[in-house]
């Protein structure tokens, strides 16, 4: 088990090093100039050059690369070209929105998906199963920005229960902040839940055909115990894999939802930074995400080992 985890951790570190080189060089190829973008059409060339010097963009590619990676080692992500504040501050502000949002929608989608998946699998082929799967098909097919707008019109414009968008900040109190995250979390959770429910159902159906299930039933175990204790636990591997992928997506792949609810999340930060050629922000956020994905995958690996005793003994 320890050796297994060490191996995974080493692979993760190597991935980070390779990623830093790839991310940096790919982004540097992007045409465009943060200084010219900041000063616009009318700026004189000497003003633009003065700003380039101020931003540190007059230095060479390698100098900047090693400066950046050197900083990363000591958790110094550099300063944003556009905002001229430390990148880490920007990221921390945005993560205070994106992280809770991702966690809430993940919890929500799991809370919806597992029961639905188990319920459908247990009633395979019956109307309840067909209905549940039709609903999940709908969940997968509905574009989430459309669903998000629908939620806004019903709950914000019509019922006026929650704000139509925006984020007041945690300093405004936990409840107003949570209120602002409810609709986006639902909008994000629905398609995730739909996918997860389908995966749960099919994984469970595979397991339900196994001999040990028949044995458990023959032993006279109630259906509920068979399903939740024996079958679901064995069906968890693909479900956990999908969950891990979904978490990574929820952290930064949510630009569209962040736009609809005008939330200051990580996805929008990256999107904006790409447009403004604030490359140091893009590079640093991408590296953070790579690191997060690696850690989440590591956790998923650990949880595999927890649900699957065979992986515990493998070295």
């Amino acid at each position: 088990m320890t050796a297994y985890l060490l191996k995974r951790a080493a692979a993760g570190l190597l991935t980070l090093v390779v990623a830093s080189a790839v991310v940096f060089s790919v982004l540097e190829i992007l045409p465009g100039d943060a200084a010219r973008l900041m000063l616009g059409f009318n700026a004189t060339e000497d003003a633009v050059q003065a700003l380039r010097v101020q931003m540190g963009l007059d230095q060479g590619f390698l100098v900047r690369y090693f400066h950046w990676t050197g900083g990363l080692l000591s958790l110094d992500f550099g300063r944003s070209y556009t905002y001229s504040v430390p990148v880490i501050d920007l990221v921390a502000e945005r993560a205070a929105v994106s992280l809770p949002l991702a966690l809430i929608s993940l919890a929500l989608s799991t809370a919806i998906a597992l029961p639905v998946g188990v319920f459908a699998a247990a009633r395979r082929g019956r109307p309840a199963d067909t209905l549940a799967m039709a609903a999940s098909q709908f969940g997968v097919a509905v574009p989430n920005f459309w669903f998000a707008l629908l939620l806004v019109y019903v709950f914000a414009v019509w019922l006026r229960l929650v704000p139509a968008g925006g984020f007041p900040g945690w300093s405004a109190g936990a409840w107003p902040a949570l209120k602002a995250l409810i609709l986006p979390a639902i909008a994000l959770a629905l398609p995730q839940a739909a996918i997860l429910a389908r995966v749960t159902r099919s994984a469970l159906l595979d397991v339900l055909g196994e001999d040990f299930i028949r044995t458990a039933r023959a032993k006279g175990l109630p259906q509920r115990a068979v399903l939740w204790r024996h079958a679901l636990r064995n069906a968890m591997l693909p479900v956990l894999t999908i969950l891990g992928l979904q978490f990574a997506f929820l952290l930064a792949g949510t630009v569209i939802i962040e736009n609809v609810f005008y939330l200051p999340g990580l996805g929008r930060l990256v999107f904006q930074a790409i447009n403004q050629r604030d490359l140091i922000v893009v590079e640093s956020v991408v590296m953070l995400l790579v690191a997060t994905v690696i850690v989440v995958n590591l956790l998923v690996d650990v949880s595999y080992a927890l649900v699957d005793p065979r992986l515990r003994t493998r070295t």
Partner: protein
Amino acid sequence: MKIRKSVLAAALVVLVSNAAYAARTDLVLGIPLEPPNLDPTAGAAAAIDEVLYANVFEGLTRIGARGEVLPALAESWTVSDDGKVYTFKLRTSVKYHDGTDFNADDVKFSLDRARADNSTNAQKGLFAAIDTVEVVDSATVKVTLKNPQGSFLYNMGWGDAVIVAPESAETNKDNPVGTGPFKFGSWAKGSSITLVKADSYWGDPVALDKVEFRIIPDAAAAVPALLSGDVQALPNFQLGDALPQVQSDPRFKVVIGSTEGETVLATNNKKPPFDNLKVRQAIAHAIDRKAIIDGASGGYGVPIGSHFSPANAAYVDLTGTYPYDPAKAKALLAEAGFPDGFKTTLKLPPVGYARDGGQIIASELRDIGIDAEIIPVEWADWLKQVFTEKDYDLSIVSHTEPNDIDIYARKDYYFNYDNPAFHKVIEELNLTSDEAKRTELYGQAQKILADDAVNGFLFELPKIGIWDAKVEGLWENAPIQATDLTKVKWVD
């Protein structure tokens, strides 16, 4: 006795509810783009000025709702007979929001900083004519120009020319300190910027106590924000297809005005075949402005025939110079040696009017035999390829700076246009401060550009403002990039 008591109680209720119905003093405005910083002297982004100009920062002069030059921190001025020396009489007892006093030293500091060698002012050109800035006394500043400049007072009204204090100049990007009627409250990055009333303000106090600019990047999100009451004004927002939904709602006022944005089919005048006047004239004849305005701007926007704002007093309508006439366009192309047309490219930046307008123009050009391949580009890419490297044939873009006809006289500007006659008019304009003469010269300049068909002149970008019907005082037009809140109030 009992009756009296209840009368008294009723009177009290009326009193209390009257107090509760006093006009609102807070306002939330939706803006589509977040300013990259909060210092008007450190960036070209319109969003910076749209939050801070006239609200937090003030210049020597200011631009009013009709584009006129008004006194601001300078309460009056005199100009020497040769037009080279401006003596500004400054307002006294003006304080910055941090409590420090404003005086002539700040003016000298601000102007010298903007034109210094290491200046990163996006409009450094505004200060190019300044030779020296002298402090005469604490309330008088003498600015000497290298040559007379007719637009000098106007230039000093730009957001890029606001007066800042030496103590706060370097930190204004994050914590702006100005002299205006509002002071900076807070900035939740990516989310909103809050301004609060500055009690120390020298001028007429403003009616609003608290103003929040909320960043709403998506038009589809802006409408529900407005409908739910979260946001009460969208001072300048391209709502596109969502506009009719708001227009039919009596709770809101929809005000269509004009910006200073000349939307043009930018043309590379040195690159064959566009170096041929007949080809450019053919393109001008091929353009149906009405179809473009309908398709790219929801039917709003005034057609233009040259590079000049119809809102300006010196505007001349030249849309008839080369009217829409595909047959004539084809004939001109044939005369120019392209009876079968030619292939070219059309690079489009990521804005609605360009992407939608590009489709229409490409199809209109195809009608006369020109096959324009559409190449969508990002802004950063556009600035590099089109604006800086001039590696383009045709493009569509809106030039939003006010009074910017002089860009056609700039060396190496990306239109690659170079006409000595035009240079002469602009030079003369620079040396003229007589209004009547300036109007005449502006007219000549517009005519030359129209005749030369330098670019395809399309339309003036509209300013679409939507706000609560009870809000008054927001500008109809945008003669300068600003959301001037000094006269804004709630009425019942």
